Structure formats: structure tokens, C-alpha cells
């Protein structure tokens, strides 16, 4: 057959897909529009690129619209993003005016489709004001916030709240990220796509070729952290954990893989600190990979014995899910969304210090059987809970709830 749903059925089981087909029945023919600000790049576009065709195949009349804006518009929305994550960002009045003007302009071309839709999903702050410019809307409008807004910079949140308060509902990734709003706030945890370049099965020959090309010796144990060079990901703490472990496992190698971040001065500072801490150790591989090096990251994760995500602060941490999907136990910082994924002593370990990370790494490297058993449990845990199909089911549930129900129990006939 070869449909997208069939491909997912091959991974998740046909009953999962059958359930989606039953759940979608009351939504058949419904007009649904997703709006964000980019077709490519970033997690939101990545998710929409998968969710939209899946919804279409399930019989929903779905479209994906992208708003456009100039450099100042994106400068402003980048400021929003940072401010929602808690950074103190002052955004000049001129940029705010441009933000509103850009949305007004985009509304002119999108208005007919948006006002005619049964459900409109507006992703993140960029297109949030569109609601205001569609006064004859007939459907339900949902603001989907993908950002960790648990401790937003208040003046910016206060400004944005004016635009999102009027929505019929919002969706946040975790309860901790939700802000008080005068409508129902759904919670949908993020997911990974098992068919994406980042997560798809790779031949061992490809894994060996990629990893060897990066100078990593697959005959020796490998410990990896994949993340931005950010102080909250504690890469220097990871190096310390590696050194403490290496005393007991002298052949150990460490891979710190992150994206190139030439436009982020903080990342460059952290990278300098990492290089200083690595002190030219030939077994520490600090890799700066292009943003689209998904297949290389995939190979590195698969070649690793243990994956770390020793964050000091973390929203959800999808790299944790990615590693678990590849059957790797994860040693993760005891913080944020990592706690939902790493079940202590079952799918990995939660740690608070480099010493804790080293202790658990040593333990796993000397108990190979347990390492593999934990990895297997980790993969199954992701299969049950963190794949795109679960994400889609929850989206459908939210849509059914909004269109067909009231109260806490909705019975479909």
C-alpha cells in the first residue's frame, strides 16, 4: 500500500492507526488550518510537515499556511521567544508596531481561509494577532505554544497575553509551561517522528562510516551528549563526569555534539569554556555540526553506549527521547521534562552532579547486560508514549472536544 499511515502502522502497530481512524470519524471533512511562520527549519515546521499529511490522509481537510515578515518582524518574534523563556528582553515600540502591522498585512491574504475554517491552530507568538484581524471567524481558534513559558519575562507576556486571551483554547507542552488564560488550556507533550532522518533505522555500515569519519573509534566505549552549547546543558559538567568515569574505564571516549552557533554570542563563550575544559584530550570529540546534520546525529546516538543529557534546566529535552528510541539508557539531569522521560533506574538515571553522572556511567559500563536491558525498556517507553502517533491522537482529541463536546466526558455516537 505505501501510505504514510501504513508506514506508521508498521512501527506502532495497526491498532494504533485503527484507533486514529475511529477517533477522526466526527472530524471528517472538517476544515482545519495550521498557521506558523516558517515552512522549514525549527521544531514546529518539522512537526507540521508530518502532522499535516497525516491529518489529510485521515480525511481532514487540512492546510498549512505560513505568514511572511521582514527582518524586523523576526527580530521582534525572536525577542518574544527569548522573553517567554525567561530572558529579560526589552522590545522597542517600533518593532511591536511592525509585528502588529505584519500580522494585519498577512490577515488580508489569509482572512477568507481562516474565517471559513472549523478549527484554526496558530503556532507560537508570531501569528498570534491574526485572530484579532479575522472578526467574522466561525470556527474554534487554538493557540499552540511550543515554548517553555513557565517563567516568562512579565512585560512581554503581558503584551502577548492581549492577543492570545481571545482564543477558544490553548495548548502547552507541559503543565509547568502553562500561563493563566481565560480559556481551556490543553496539555500535549512533544513527540519524535520515528520516520524522520533523525530517528529512522540506519544500517550499521552507515553508522560506522559516519562515526569513523568523525574520528570516533567504535571499538571503544562512547558516551555522548547531543545539545546546544548552552550553560544550562552543562557541557563542562559532562566533561567532568567523563574524566571521573575514565579513571575506571580508560578507553572511554566522549562526544559533545551540537549545532554551529555563530550568531549566538553566549554559545561561543560556552564553546570556549568547553574547549578549555577538554584541554586537547584526543578522546573528547567536540563536534560542531550543521543544523541539518540529522542523519549524522542519528548515527552518533546509535554508536553511543550511553547518552547523557545532564541539563541543569530543561524544558522537555527531545534529544532524550531520540536516544531512548535508539535503545540507549539516558543519564539525565534531574530537572524539568527529563523527569517524565527518564524513569530513574528503569530507562536510565536521574542525576544532580557530574559525580552522579560518572557513578551511573561506570555502573552501566560495567553491567553491560543491564545497560542493554535498560535501553530496551527505554525504547519501549518511547514507543508507548512519545511517538508522533500519540501526538496526533491528542490533537484529534482536542479537536473533537472543542467541536463536539462540553464537560469532561464526550460520547461520540
Amino acid at each position, binding site marked *: 500500500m505505501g501510505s504514510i499511515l501504513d508506514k506508521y502502522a508498521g512501527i506502532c502497530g495497526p*491498532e*494504533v492507526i*485503527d*484507533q486514529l481512524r*475511529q*477517533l477522526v*470519524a466526527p472530524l471528517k471533512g472538517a476544515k482545519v488550518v495550521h498557521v506558523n511562520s516558517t515552512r522549514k527549519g525549527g521544531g514546529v515546521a518539522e512537526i507540521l510537515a508530518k502532522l499535516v499529511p497525516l491529518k489529510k490522509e485521515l480525511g481532514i481537510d487540512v492546510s498549512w499556511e505560513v505568514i511572511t515578515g521582514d527582518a524586523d518582524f523576526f527580530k521582534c518574534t525572536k525577542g518574544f521567544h527569548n522573553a517567554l523563556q525567561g530572558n529579560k528582553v526589552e522590545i522597542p515600540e517600533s518593532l511591536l508596531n511592525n509585528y502588529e502591522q505584519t500580522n494585519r498585512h498577512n490577515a488580508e491574504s489569509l482572512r477568507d481561509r481562516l474565517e471559513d475554517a472549523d478549527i484554526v491552530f496558530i503556532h507560537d507568538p508570531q501569528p498570534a494577532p491574526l485572530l484579532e484581524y479575522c472578526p467574522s471567524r466561525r470556527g474554534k481558534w487554538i493557540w499552540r505554544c511550543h515554548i517553555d513559558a513557565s517563567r516568562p519575562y512579565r512585560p512581554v507576556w503581558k503584551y502577548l497575553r492581549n492577543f492570545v486571551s481571545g482564543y477558544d483554547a490553548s495548548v*502547552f507542552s507541559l*503543565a*509547568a509551561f*502553562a500561563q*493563566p488564560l481565560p480559556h*481551556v*488550556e*490543553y*496539555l*500535549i*507533550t512533544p513527540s519524535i517522528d520515528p520516520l524522520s532522518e533523525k530517528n529512522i533505522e540506519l544500517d550499521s555500515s552507515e553508522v560506522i562510516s559516519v562515526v569513523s569519519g568523525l574520528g570516533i573509534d567504535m571499538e571503544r566505549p562512547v558516551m555522548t551528549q547531543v545539545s546546544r552549547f548552552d550553560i544550562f546543558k552543562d557541557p563542562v559538567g559532562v566533561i567532568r563526569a567523563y574524566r571521573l568515569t575514565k579513571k575506571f574505564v580508560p578507553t572511554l571516549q566522549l562526544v559533545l555534539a551540537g549545532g554551529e552557533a555563530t550568531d549566538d554570542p553566549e554559545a561561543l563563550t560556552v564553546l570556549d569554556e568547553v574547549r578549555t575544559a577538554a584541554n586537547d584530550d584526543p578522546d573528547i570529540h567536540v563536534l560542531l555540526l550543521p543544523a541539518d546534520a540529522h542523519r549524522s546525529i542519528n548515527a552518533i546516538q546509535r554508536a553511543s553506549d550511553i547518552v547523557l543529557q545532564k541539563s541543569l534546566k530543561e524544558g522537555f529535552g527531545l534529544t532524550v527521547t531520540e536516544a531512548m528510541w535508539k535503545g540507549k539508557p539516558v543519564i539525565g539531569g534531574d*530537572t*524539568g521534562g527529563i523527569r*517524565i*522521560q527518564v*524513569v530513574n533506574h*528503569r*530507562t536510565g538515571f536521574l542525576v544532580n552532579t557530574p559525580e552522579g553522572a560518572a557513578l551511573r556511567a561506570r555502573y552501566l559500563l560495567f553491567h553491560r547486560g543491564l545497560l542493554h536491558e535498560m535501553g530496551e*525498556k527505554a525504547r519501549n*517507553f518511547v514507543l*508507548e*508514549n*512519545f511517538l508522533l502517533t500519540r501526538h496526533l*491522537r*491528542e490533537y*484529534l*482529541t*482536542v479537536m*473533537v*472536544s472543542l467541536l463536539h*463536546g462540553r*464537560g*469532561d*466526558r*464526550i*460520547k*461520540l*455516537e
Partner: protein
Amino acid sequence: MTKKKITRHPFEIKDCALAAVATGQKAQNLRELRDNLETVVPGSIAYHFWAGKLRPRFDDPEFNNDFASWSRHALHDKILAERLGMIDPTSFDRFEEMKQELLDIIEERLDELGHIPWASGDQQFYFITSQIVVFSARRTIVEPAELVSVIPEMTSSSIFYHFIDARRRTFGHLDDFRAWLYGFEDRYRDLCDILSNVDPFFSTLPELRDQLGGIFSEYFGSGR
């Protein structure tokens, strides 16, 4: 004697999906947990007792409800966790009674401690409630023996709906299977007794499905 086919009690297999909803209420310490319990919507208390099975949670959970789990892991109060962990939501006829039991246990613990235990900044208890969407799995059975073939094909959420969620909505807090089987008068009373011994709280949904499948298979396989 020929077996009389009973068709007046069809059993429609249903499935469900849950949408989690933030209530906006949260607790940083035990006193706040207590105060929020007084005002939170009933669906939230139910969610923290029942819905765990449909959320990301690992097998072999230490506690059967989120209040006990938070007391243990965020407040580090083992005594309170053990007491809260023993609350059986099916033993209360009215929601208010269960809420009062929770409040009594927490207040007693606050009195014993003489201080208020706090969770760290990022381990607040978030009160969540849910909307459950119930839909047909497009299969109806008329003979209890058909459960042998139906159970292994049910999704985890369908098992949740019929074996766990049912206890919130049926008279006498029964699962749907027993509620249906009792409709055959005394014919399946022994099977109902076996089902009543299945504790749904400490197994995963796939494990429950296997357990139920085994029970029905053994019962009907023996020629009854």
C-alpha cells in the same frame, strides 16, 4: 441440554482518548496541596487517581496515585506517601467522601509534623483535569465466550475504558465486564469472582489485557 443463546445483552466495545487540561492550580508545599484540594474541580482529583494509566508512566509504579507519588518524591515524606498510596478510590460512593479522606490524611500529617514540608522550586504539584472522548471500537459481542477473542485485540485505552474508567461510572464501582456478566443472572458469578480479584492499579494496561485474556481463555476454554 442445548445452550441458550442470550442476545438481549450485547456488549459494545468502546475506546477512549484523553485530553489533559491544566487547571492553573499548583502546590509548592503540603499546605498548598491541602488548600487546592478543597477548591479544585472533582475531575482533577479523579485524574490524579485514575488517568495515570493513560499518561507516560512506567510499568510497576510505586504508588497508585499522583498525590502519594508527589509526597514521596517531591516532599520526601515516606509516611504520608504510604498513607495516601493506600486510598482506594473505588471504596467511596461519593466523590466528596474521597476528597475528605485525602484532606483528613494530609491534615493529620501536618499536625504530626508541626512544620510544612516544601517541594523544590521545579517540583510543584500541578493539578490537571481531563476531557475523555469515548467512541465506538466498531465491535459488539453477544456471548461472553467471545471475550476470549476480543480482549487480545483491544487497545490499551479500550482496556482502560472498560476495566478502570468503568469503576467511576458504574453502580457498585464495577468494571464493565462484570457489570455485563452480572446481567446473565448467576450464570457467570464464579467468573465475576475471579475478575474481582484483579487489582488494576499495579499493572500496565498491556499487562492487564494479558491478564484478562488469560482469565477468559482459561474460563471458557474449560468448556463453560
